[in-house]
């Protein structure tokens, strides 16, 4: 989600603003904190100085007071009496006059003579003054720890008039004093006692203006006391800043001045809250601004994206947003792209529909337009081919051929009446469409026949023209495929016609479709047992027995019914399926021969197509089949037509020789009808000729047929061939054939082609049918 421009912009602005706000806040707060600390330092320093001055003032005041007291004659006299009771009384009496909490009397050597407090550490007192000072000093004031209390102790000599003793008066640094000092300095004041006990220091509160609970929080460590002499030290909870001053020489007694921190803490927090508020508002404004800015960029971008998407999907969007700046440049670029895309698309469409050479419509475009046209109205489709165009290409080269096609195309477009459609379907194939049947196509196309000038050469064309006049069937318009097929059929007929013009005749389409069906279904039929084999006996006239049969293929189609073998064999030869049929036949017949191996020897003959005889692998395949089914070569015969030999005599003879070498008996089928060549006949390694039924059918009536049969038989016998007559239908014919010396006869007179089972029945029964021959004999 961070990849989008909007979120990145938002993040950057937020980060920058936060950084800036943070830096500003830190700087401001730090400056404020420093300022506050400096102020606090100043306040505390001033207050500390005032505090010290106050203590000094108090000290001098007390000194004066005590001096006055010590000069009192009665006091001096009492001291001079050296009566301890008297001295005790006078100390208490005069001490109470100036509200001293402690009064002591010291000798001029510093020894304690009397005290208002019975328990005093006397040793500490002797060191208060140096030796000589005990004689001469006027007064001495200091703060002393006496009996775990802090006292401001003022020592004054008692003169009589020489110094006879020192009187000391102590004024406790108590809460009352702290309160007084607080009223002047404005700060809380504490007096503490710090006693070093080895490593640690025991700190004890003597008096303070602070409430009890605050004292715990203001508590400072020994180290902090040292630091607090110069710099304010903050308490643990930041509530107070404190400075410390040592009061006595041993640095055991301390005065602490406390400045409440709450004032600047309060303003610090106020400032922080204000900064937060400012930051928050600024962030909100910045986010709104960033959102608006991002939107102003991304919205046109989204529109452009949508535009580009529609463009990519092939639609033609027209709502390009009006924008300026960089997005505007992109927008106009997209617009230009749209234009050039549109142009290119137009060109592509044109190229897709037009032939590159002649600029006429191509087949696809022609199909579309003809389909459209045929839905609306009647018309005439004309398919035009250049005869032997390949020869022109061969003779003049492809460039000339192309130039010729262009010129032809140009003339087609100038035809009168003008065609609705002119298209080039293939190399030299052009399609024309007229709305009405022209009165005379010949005159219409006459202009096409005049010679074409190419590179100084004049070329005349022969054209073949097939046409189909169709009716507009609004309810069920003819599919364009049908239209094209029909004109194609017409064209095919035209190619065969002498004048090169043919029109589609009703029914041609249906027979064409039937042929298509046969061709398509033949491989299926081979696998699904629609084909079967019949055997027609060949009867030997010498032995009067059946020792051979011709295997004939039968196809009973589930829809088309019985399909004549001539028809589907011819189609199979055209479509290249003939090898499938031959292989199937060979295998079936050899299997049948194997099945009949236990009977009397029988040769089964299979017809070969001319295409089979160009296949050099045929002898090997047959050998394999014979081996596979353990059938002797003598059980198989092969029949070929004369025409088959003529196509490629050398190769065919080689293959026939190989078959002959296998021991298979070969026969020339349909002898006398094809392109017989006696020159080849003598070379062929065959054993038998079969005289076509055309000569046998009317042999008893037609003397010419009889003569041909007689001559052919003699010729064949002369070449050492056996002779078989096909198509014998009656006994009269049989007698003629016997007379001519035919070896074997095949025909309905003996038996029509029979299924394998019936054939065997017939063959078993045949020896009992000798009457067919007897009648002949009786004649």
């Amino acid at each position, binding site marked *: 989600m961070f990849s989008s421009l909007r979120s990145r912009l938002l993040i950057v602005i937020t980060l920058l603003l936060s950084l800036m706000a943070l830096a500003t806040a830190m700087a401001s707060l730090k400056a404020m904190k420093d300022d506050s600390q400096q102020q606090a330092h100043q306040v505390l320093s001033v207050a500390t100085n005032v505090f010290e001055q106050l203590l000094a003032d108090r000290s001098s005041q007390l000194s004066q007071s005590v001096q006055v007291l010590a*000069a009192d*004659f009665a006091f*001096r*006299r009492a001291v*001079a009496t050296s009566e301890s009771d008297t001295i005790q009384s006078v100390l208490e009496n005069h001490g109470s006059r100036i509200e001293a909490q402690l009064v002591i009397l010291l000798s001029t050597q510093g020894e304690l003579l009397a005290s208002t407090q019975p328990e005093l550490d006397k040793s500490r007192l002797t060191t208060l003054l140096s*030796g*000589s000072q005990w*004689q*001469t000093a006027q007064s001495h004031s200091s703060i002393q720890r006496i009996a775990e209390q802090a006292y401001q102790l003022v020592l004054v000599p008692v*003169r*009589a*008039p*020489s110094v*006879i003793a020192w009187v000391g008066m102590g004024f406790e640094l108590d809460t009352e004093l702290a309160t007084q000092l607080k009223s002047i300095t404005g700060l809380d004041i504490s007096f503490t006692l710090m006693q070093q006990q080895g490593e640690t220091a025991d700190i004890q509160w003597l008096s303070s203006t602070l409430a009890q609970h605050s004292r715990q929080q203001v508590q400072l460590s020994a180290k902090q006391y040292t630091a607090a002499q110069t710099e304010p030290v903050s308490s643990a909870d930041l509530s107070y800043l404190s400075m410390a001053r040592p009061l006595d020489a041993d640095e055991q007694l301390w005065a602490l001045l406390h400045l409440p921190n709450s004032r600047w803490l309060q303003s610090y927090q106020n400032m922080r809250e204000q900064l937060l508020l400012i930051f928050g508002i600024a962030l909100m404004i910045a986010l709104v601004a960033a959102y608006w800015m991002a939107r102003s960029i991304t919205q046109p971008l989204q529109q452009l994206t949508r535009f580009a998407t529609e463009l990519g999907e092939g639609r033609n969007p027209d709502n390009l947003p009006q924008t300026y700046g960089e997005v505007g440049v992109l927008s106009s670029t997209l617009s230009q792209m749209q234009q050039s895309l549109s142009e290119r698309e137009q060109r592509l469409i044109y190229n897709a529909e037009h032939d590159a050479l002649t600029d006429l419509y191509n087949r696809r475009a022609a199909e579309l337009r003809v389909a459209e046209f045929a839905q609306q109205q009647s018309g005439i489709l004309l398919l035009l081919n250049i005869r032997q165009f390949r020869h022109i290409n061969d003779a003049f080269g492809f460039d000339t051929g192309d130039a010729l096609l262009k010129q032809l195309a140009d003339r087609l477009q100038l035809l009168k009446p003008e065609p609705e459609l002119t298209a080039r379907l293939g190399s030299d194939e052009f399609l024309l469409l007229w709305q009405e049947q022209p009165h005379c196509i010949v005159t219409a196309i006459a202009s096409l026949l005049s010679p074409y000038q190419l590179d100084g050469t004049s070329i005349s064309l022969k054209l073949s023209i097939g046409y189909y006049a169709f009716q507009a069937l609004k309810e069920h318009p003819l599919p364009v495929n049908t239209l094209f097929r029909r004109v194609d059929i017409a064209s095919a007929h035209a190619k065969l016609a002498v004048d090169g013009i043919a029109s589609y005749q009703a029914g041609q389409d249906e027979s064409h479709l039937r042929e298509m069906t046969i061709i398509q279904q033949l491989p299926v039929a081979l696998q699904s047992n629609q084909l079967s084999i019949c055997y027609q006996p060949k009867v030997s006239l010498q032995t009067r027995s059946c020792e051979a049969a011709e295997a004939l293929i039968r196809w009973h189609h589930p829809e088309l019914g019985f399909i004549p073998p001539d028809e589907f064999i011819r189609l199979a030869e055209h479509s290249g399926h003939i090898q499938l049929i031959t292989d199937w036949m060979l295998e079936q017949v050899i299997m049948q021969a194997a099945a009949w191996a236990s009977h009397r020897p029988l040769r089964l003959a299979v017809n070969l197509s001319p295409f089979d005889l160009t296949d050099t692998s045929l002898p090997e395949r047959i050998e394999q089949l014979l081996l596979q089914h353990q059938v002797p070569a003598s059980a198989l015969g092969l029949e070929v037509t004369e025409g088959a030999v003529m196509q490629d005599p050398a190769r065919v003879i080689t293959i026939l020789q190989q078959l002959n070498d296998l021991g298979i008996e070969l026969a020339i089928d349909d002898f006398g009808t094809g392109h017989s060549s006696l020159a080849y006949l003598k070379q062929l390694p065959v054993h038998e000729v079969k005289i076509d039924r055309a000569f046998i059918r009317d042999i008893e009536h037609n003397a010419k047929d009889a003569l041909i049969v007689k001559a052919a038989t003699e010729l064949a016998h002369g070449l050492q061939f056996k002779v078989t007559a096909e198509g014998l239908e009656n006994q009269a014919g049989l007698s003629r054939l016997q007379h001519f010396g035919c070896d074997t006869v095949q025909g309905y007179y003996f038996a029509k082609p029979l299924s394998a089972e019936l054939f065997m029945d017939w063959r078993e029964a045949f020896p009992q049918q000798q009457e067919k021959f007897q009648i002949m004999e009786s004649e």
Partner: protein
Amino acid sequence: MSLSVIFTTLCLLCSLVAWNATAGDWQFSILDQYGAPLEDAVVELLPLGQTEAATETSQQATIKQQGLNFVPFVSAVQVGTLIDFPNLDRTRHHVYSFSAAKMFEIQLYHDQPEAPIEFDTPGIVALGCNIHDYMEAYIFISESHLFAVTDEQGQAHFHALPKGDYQLTIWHPFQQQELAPQPLSFSELPKVSQYQLDVIHRPKQPTPQRGFGS
């Protein structure tokens, strides 16, 4: 504090000639710790092994209050001396002593007190005035009749002293430590002795500024 007393006896003939000394003269020169002559030091000689001839008539001395000061600052008297304290100033004085040797008090008075005061106990008496705190004076009450107070040259003179053994005591009001008495013998030949004493110097009877209390 260490007290160093340099005890030196000098017998210088030439100096006798120059000084014009006669037999039985004994001169003491007292110096402070810096070697400067020390005024107001009391030198007392107590004859040893001789019975002191009792004084038949009591001796008289005077310590005046003049110019708001005691004059003299240091007096040395024999035990039993009667000292008069005449007030020569216009103001009244209230002379007192809290010293053990003689405690007394002459309350506010003009001119002459009612009676002189007899100092019948040897020792030191510090005198003060309750009205003028700075005023002070000292009386050395000696058991002996041989004593002298040094002059500005720090000298004290004894004349016609019989030969014999004496106990010397030197005292000064500003001395840091009391000097132990020491026995000496005297051979009637003129003799000069010099002693040093540690003192803390301070102005004696510092008169306050005029116009206040005078």
